[in-house]
Each structure stands twice: as C-alpha cells, then as structure tokens.
C-alpha cells in the first residue's frame, strides 16, 4: 500500500496503519533523535514521545504527502524537550556514567552526533532536515517556517561549521569534502 493511503487510513483513526507508517520511518526517526540526544535510551524515549504526540495530532495533518515532514518537526521538538529536561534534571555527576554506558558500536555515530550537537541550533535543524532527511530546500523552509533564502544561507554556514568540527580544522584546512 502506498504511503499516502496509509496516512489517509491513519487520519481516520486506523491504529495499525499509523504504526506501519512509523515503523516504515523508524530508522530515520531513531538516527535523527540520536543526533540530538546522543544516547540510545534518550533517543528511544524521544521516538516514543514522538509516536505519542503524533498519534494524538494526526487528524490535524492537512496534506498527506507532508506526513514525514510533519512527523520530523514533531520529533525535533521532542528532542529539544528531552535536552531541556536533561539540562534541568540531570545532576552533573550523572553525566559521566551516562557517557560510559554508550555502546561502542555507536562510536562512529557519536562523532557525527557530537559534531551536529555543537552546531548552532538554527544550522543544526537545517542540516538535519536537508542532508539526513533528504528534504528539499522548499520543504525545509516549510518545516522551519523560514524563507528559502535563509535556509540556503544556514545550510552553507552550517556545512562549513560541521566540516570544521568533524574533520578538525587544523588538519583539513583547504581540503574540500
């Protein structure tokens, strides 16, 4: 069944269709959550919260073809909420144990997650949506309520920042990725 049909069913309250949709996009949801929160447990929580909020709000989705865009917007908001909560709740001494629990297998992802996390928020959102979610400039603009030209500018600056962080400015100066 194509995705638009699933979205239509989900909007009519079909729980299974909604679940199918989310499972279809689960890897992307998890990886994006991981980029923001940088650990497995919180990333899973963010996905769960996204499922919760999006299921309650699915009837408000206007155009079926924008389902993923709409879902991503919810996910990003959940990720920021999780980060905000962590900032308020987690005593400093608990941060080290959390880091130590990170799965070694996630280390490659960690580099990217750490680097993405160091970007200014406005650049981070644009980079995540454009590069990882493969949205067009137009779609990114729609999700973030920004003019398209601003998205382009943020994208350029964000990429430059990310490149610097990821590869180490000293070693890779002048080398284009």
């Amino acid at each position, binding site marked *: 069944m194509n995705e638009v049909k699933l979205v239509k069913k989900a909007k009519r309250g079909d729980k299974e269709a909604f679940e199918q949709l989310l499972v279809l996009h689960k890897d992307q949801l998890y990886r994006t959550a991981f980029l923001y929160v940088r650990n497995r447990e919180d990333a899973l929580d963010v996905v769960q919260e996204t499922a919760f909020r999006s299921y309650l709000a699915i009837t408000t989705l206007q155009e079926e073809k924008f389902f993923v865009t709409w879902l991503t917007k919810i996910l990003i908001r959940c990720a920021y*909420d999780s980060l905000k909560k962590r900032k308020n709740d987690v005593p400093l001494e608990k941060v080290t144990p959390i880091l130590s629990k990170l799965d070694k297998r996630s280390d490659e992802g960690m580099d990217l997650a750490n680097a993405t996390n160091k970007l200014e928020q406005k650049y981070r959102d644009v980079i995540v949506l454009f590069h990882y979610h493969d949205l067009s400039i137009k779609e990114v603009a729609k999700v973030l309520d920004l003019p398209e030209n601003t998205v382009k500018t943020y994208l350029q600056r964000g990429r430059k920042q990310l490149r610097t962080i990821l590869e180490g400015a*000293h070693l890779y100066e002048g080398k284009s990725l």
Partner: protein
Amino acid sequence: MKENLYKDQYDKIDVPEDELVRSIQSGIDQADGKRSFKRQRNIKRSIVSTAAAVVLSATFLSSNVSNALADVPVIGEAYHVFNDMVGRNLTSQQLVTELDEKSSGKGLDVMMTSAYYDGAVIGVSFKVVGDVKEDEFREVNGFYEIYGGNEAISDSKEIVPLEKSGDDYIGQIQLAYPGKELPANTSFPLEFKRIGEKEGSWKFDVPVEQLPYEEVELDQVRSNEQADVAVQFNSIIEGQASTAINYTGTFPLEGKHDQVRLEVVDENGEQVNVSRDGIDLETSQENDHIVVKGRSIIPENLKERTDYIEIQPKVALSGVEDQFIHLSEKLPIKIESTRQDHVISVNDMKVDGEKVTLDFQINNGRNDRYFEFYEDMARNEVLLVKESRKDIYEEPLKHTVKVLDKEKLSFRSTFDVSKLKGFNENNYVVRVSLGTLSSNLPVELEPVKIELN
C-alpha cells in the same frame, strides 16, 4: 540527485530494531489509551478536547496539551508517561497495587496512587492536586527524600519531574531496595520537600508487598591483578518484570570509590539495558581492601528473551592522583597510571618568554573512544599551572590545542605566558590528570556467562 555529504555516517548510527519498534508501539498505545478515553467522555469534555485539538494543530505538539486530553488518573498512567519499563510491564499484568494515601499542606494534596515491589525494584506513582506553581521554564519538579535522605543510600535525595494530567500533576519514583536482604513486606519513608515552587513537607510511609521472584545463587569471580580489583557475582534475582544482579566488589584502599559497571548482552549479542548500575548496598574494610556489596538492575524479565546473559564487568578506577612535569625535565617523559595502562607521553616542550608549547600523545594512540573525547582530554587534562597553586582547580591559562595526528591521538598545546607576571621555568609545572581517562575508560574484566533457565 542531491549531493549528500554526511549521509553515510548518519546511516552508520546503530539502530536497536526491536526496542525501537517497542518504543513506537508503546507511544501509540499510550496515546490510544487516552484517545479512547476521550471518546467516552461527555459533551463538556469534548469541547475541551476540540480546544486542545486547535492548539495542537497550531503548534503540532505539547505534551501538556496532549496530557490534558485525559484528566482522570488511570492506574499505571504515570509509569507510561515517564517510561518506567518495570511499572509499565507490571501494569499490563495487573500486578501493581492501588494505593490511597494522602498528605496535605501549602494548598497541595499529594496522593500515592499505586505501588509495586518486584525483585529488588520498588516503584510508586503519585498525583498532586491543588495550586501547583510552575517554574520559570513552565515545568514542575518535585524534590523528595527517601529513608530520611540517608547519604549511605543511593539516590536518597532526588528531583522528580511532574507532568500535567488534566487539572492535576502526576509523577513516578523508582528506587532499588537499598538492603542486601529483601523483605517480603516492607514500607519506605518518603517525604516531598518541594513541589513546583512551593516548599513544605508531605510525608508518607509507603507500604509495598513483594511479588513472587526467583533467586539463583552464583559464584563466579573476575579480577585484574594490576588494578587490584575483583568482582564476584553472588546471585541473580528474577522478578516478574525486572532482574537484579548482586555482586561483591573488592578494591584497594586508595580505590575506595572504584565503581563497578556492568554491560550485559543476551544470547544474540543484543545489548540488555542496565537501568541502575553500581548501587552500593554495604561497604566494609577487610584487611587492606574495601569490600562493596553492590547491585545492578535490568528493567525486564529476561527469561522469555534469552536462555543466558553474558555480563562484561568493568571497574572505573578512582583515587587517581594528578602528576606533574617540571618544565626543565628531560624529554620524552611518560606519565602513567599505576593501576591501568593509561599514559600521556610528552615528547616535546618549548619554553620562551611568550609561550609554552607541549607536544603529547594520549594512550600511545590507542583509540577506544570517539575522537572528541580525547580532544577534550587534551584540552582540559594537560595544563600549565603555577607550582604554588598546582592543586587548586582554577580556570586554565589561555591555550590552544592543535591536532597533530588524529589517528595517533597526538596533540600540541600552546599556552600564552606573555602576560603572566614573573613567569619562569621554575615556578610553573605541567599538570597531567589521568583521572578522567580512568573514570571514562574503566578496567575491563573477562565476561561472565549466566544461564537463566
């Protein structure tokens, strides 16, 4: 096709498939529970819901708004909202006990609504009714103490987030029973000292009754001679929805704060989530060693998932003293930790009136972690300090860190000394702190295999 510079790395982020699907399902179930509940409500409720739906469509989301869709507490709701895996599982098995205990003050009624006691894990859910004051972030937290805030008990003073549920707020607390022996029926003292922005005292003695469990005796020891540590696995407690691992850690006196951390995988090599690690139950001294009885909690019953588990014990070493290098010292010099193979080798050092330049390598280039961890180490743990103030942790001297060789973990730090009054080679030293390496790169002991059935 759009160029995609970073997609490859993104795709390498490991996805925990099964857990992810479970998270999605429980998010939907949780929302579905509220929704069907909403449908049963009367007209007044549906007006509120419509208003809420309008807000939802405008902002797409807000957990407070979505929670407002269901304002009557359902047993176990808090366990879902706060993702307490044990509580959620027990709720679905109807093994959570309903409670009706109330404590009032400062215009707030705090009510214990349910509790469970599974193996070594205790959980309670509660509700706050009344005039709750939000904080500046428009959030509500509570501060509580259990067992009178006894310092010897892990997490005996904690902050807990509350979520709005209808007109009230709900919350959940999970604790590991702090004693070696697990009594069948017990109660634990709980006092809230602040709720939202209101300070006060809301006291309870929460009764809990233990669910049936199995305890399997173990006797396996893993040790490391250089670090002088040993971890003995004593028993495993298999509850209805949780598993507890009891062990005894033995450390030298200088490592009295050493920490046991367990990593667990199932028969398929899939990671098992250890939700509470290194709970200290009892500490004693035997001859020249510290003996710690400890416990770790896994928030699921593992029997259905796997026939055995493999535990990789790790010990994060403590008491690692800073070491110092004089600027006139002969190079190269290696700063090593005595109980572990951590080493920072300083290969070159240049001192002039303007700056001090240090070339150094971390752990001989052994790369156990993501690179930025070492970069942070290089920036923060190898510092030029005034000898008379070398034990005081002040804001570091201004310095830059250049990556000389990413693969080899080689760095160059350059400290600006041009503005330092009276700087000379004799009154400044390089402080090398290996403690951060030790707490983040623990000693890894041989894995232990434990049959569950």
